[in-house]
């Protein structure tokens, strides 16, 4: 049996890029046409006697994938932060709209001024409770969103670092196992993001 090096996969990186920007993946697919089948149908089992060229070709493609992915993940992280930051003002807006809407509805269905005043008191109380609830939820929500943003930022930074290391390994003709390991780590980061794609709003 021939000794085999560990399979070198980039399937999760291509999947992630297809989620984030299918047109970018289409461009890369054309540029790296040798990998077209693997991009479309998923990873094959690797080669029995994977040589240096095999690793370098895959490293080049992985590097290109990372280059496309890093700014897109960053952008996603920024959007997540913006969403968390805008939550506070959104909360007040919602409360205000609720109060105005409530009173306006009561007026519209023909309730007298005194009754409106009394009911608006109830509404005001309700709004106060709502506000408190929103405040508590928004803190939790903001914390969750912030954590998502942190995870995304961390992923983009790690990808950038790994890409840098991988490129250096190829440039300095380091051992292929190092190259394979770097590609594998990049793919693992993408796998983690793919498996949380709904939570992170990647799709």
């Amino acid at each position: 049996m021939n000794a085999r090096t560990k399979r070198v996969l980039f399937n999760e990186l291509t999947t992630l890029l297809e989620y984030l920007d299918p047109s970018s993946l289409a461009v890369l697919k054309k540029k790296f046409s040798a990998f077209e089948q693997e991009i479309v149908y998923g990873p094959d089992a690797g080669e029995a006697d994977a040589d240096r060229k095999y690793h370098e070709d895959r490293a080049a493609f992985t590097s290109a994938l990372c280059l496309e992915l890093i700014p897109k993940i960053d952008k996603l992280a920024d959007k997540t932060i913006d969403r968390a930051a805008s939550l506070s003002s959104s909360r007040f807006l919602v409360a205000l709209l609720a109060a105005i809407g409530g009173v306006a509805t009561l007026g519209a269905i023909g309730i007298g001024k005194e009754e409106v005043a009394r009911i608006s008191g109830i509404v005001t109380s309700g709004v106060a409770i709502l506000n408190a609830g929103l405040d508590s939820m928004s803190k939790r929500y903001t914390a969750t969103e912030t954590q998502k943003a942190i995870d995304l930022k961390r992923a983009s930074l790690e990808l950038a670092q790994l890409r840098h290391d991988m490129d250096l390994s190829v440039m300095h003709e380091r051992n292929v196992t190092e190259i394979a390991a770097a590609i594998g780590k990049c793919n693992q980061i993408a796998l983690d993001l793919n498996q949380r794609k709904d939570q992170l709003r990647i799709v």
Partner: protein
Amino acid sequence: MLEGLVMQAKLSHSSKPNYGRATNVRNRNARVGHAVAASLLALLSLVASDAWAPSFGRPVYRPPEPPARPYRPAESDIYRAPTESAGAEAIKSPWAKSSSPLLETTHNADGSKRAAFWKSITDSLGSPTTNISSAYILVRIVDKGVVITTNFLQPGYKDAPVLLLNHEDLSNADVFGEAVTKLTGSTKLVDTTSLKIVLDKDPSSPEFAKLFNKDEQTFRFSTASFSHAELYLKGSTSVFALERIDRPKPPPRWAAKLNKCCVKTGVPPDIEGWAEFGRVPFNRKRAQIVSLFSDSRTSEMLAGLNSKQNFRHPNEIKGDPLEAIRKLVDEGDKSAPIIVIGHTEGSSFRVEGSQDYAVSFEALTQIAKVANRPVFFVGCYTAEHFAMADKTILDYPPIGTLNLIYPREVVPKILRALNESSSMRDFTEKLSDETLDIWVSNNFLRNVNDGAARTVRAPIYKRLRDGSKSIVGFIFMYIPCGLFGACK
């Protein structure tokens, strides 16, 4: 909070005296209070959900369509070969070219034995044509030689030559090629021009062995010009439809078609065994899948399967993989197959990723054997286990190198087969399509494990970009004899 608001509304009502006329107003106020509370609750639900957050609007994922190639249905003519006497007469008759101007429109003298033979051929195997795409070349082997003719009419002729070759000339590519050229003139053969071979002998006869190499599954004469062939054998009521399979290195293999599309087997095919295989039930409702493909998009395709009864991604396997699979097999329905899919290396399914492990075919089959359950393997790449010659009870024969099967390509086919099959043969057929051929080995349904089970081995062939086909994967089935009723 809703209850609090309602209570507050009730308290505000109860703090006032009960004036008769005001009752309706209070009731209305109470209803309004409820409405306001419900509105606030709805608002809270909206705030708590992600529904108001901006979405990124990615397109819905759809699995890619595999590339298609034109479908050519297999013919299923009933054997109506020319009579023995016609062939013998054709051979007895000397080949005499005539310079008579009357014969310019015919290759065979009217009333001659060759003319009679040609007529009997075109009457029984297909009428004359001037279209090379619907033409055939007939090769008929008899004791005294080989007769070659065609139903193709060269321009200006109303019949075709009937040529006689010595047996040894058949394996001479130049002589055979020259004979074909005589039959078709300047017209070149096309992909749909078929080769029809008539042998009035049994497949186990020495004559058949001289015609066809069963070990290599190749004809012993040059068939490079043909993609399709029909084999007419003595004693068989059916025509065997054959298809050429180009390999990276010549000579091409020939396979017999077992269905209209893409399930093939060796020559001669075991038609009875195939029919028996069709009677083995496939319990699709209780079938289980163990996917060892570590590709998240592939596992998405399997997302519809119950996570408690299937492993849709290796990450779902906790602890020792073999033990986890054993538990799944033990808890499942004994009559239902368990289908293990993944990349293979050597004699094992190999999984790389967060859990790096290998599960050997033999260990998996042993689990199925103990549980008395059918188990299917669908794998790919270098299954070197198959290169081991008959070393285990499972008896995997050498079938060559496996390569280039992709999970996203094969999993939709497995799901289709899983959802639509009612027999084991059905399942095998539905795994194949125009892009992937299943080649059921000649001696499939062989008894193993002291007659307690039967196995089926079938390499998967894929059409490559250069038009040739290569083994890319395999199917292996271990089926307890109980599902057959009994094994013979």
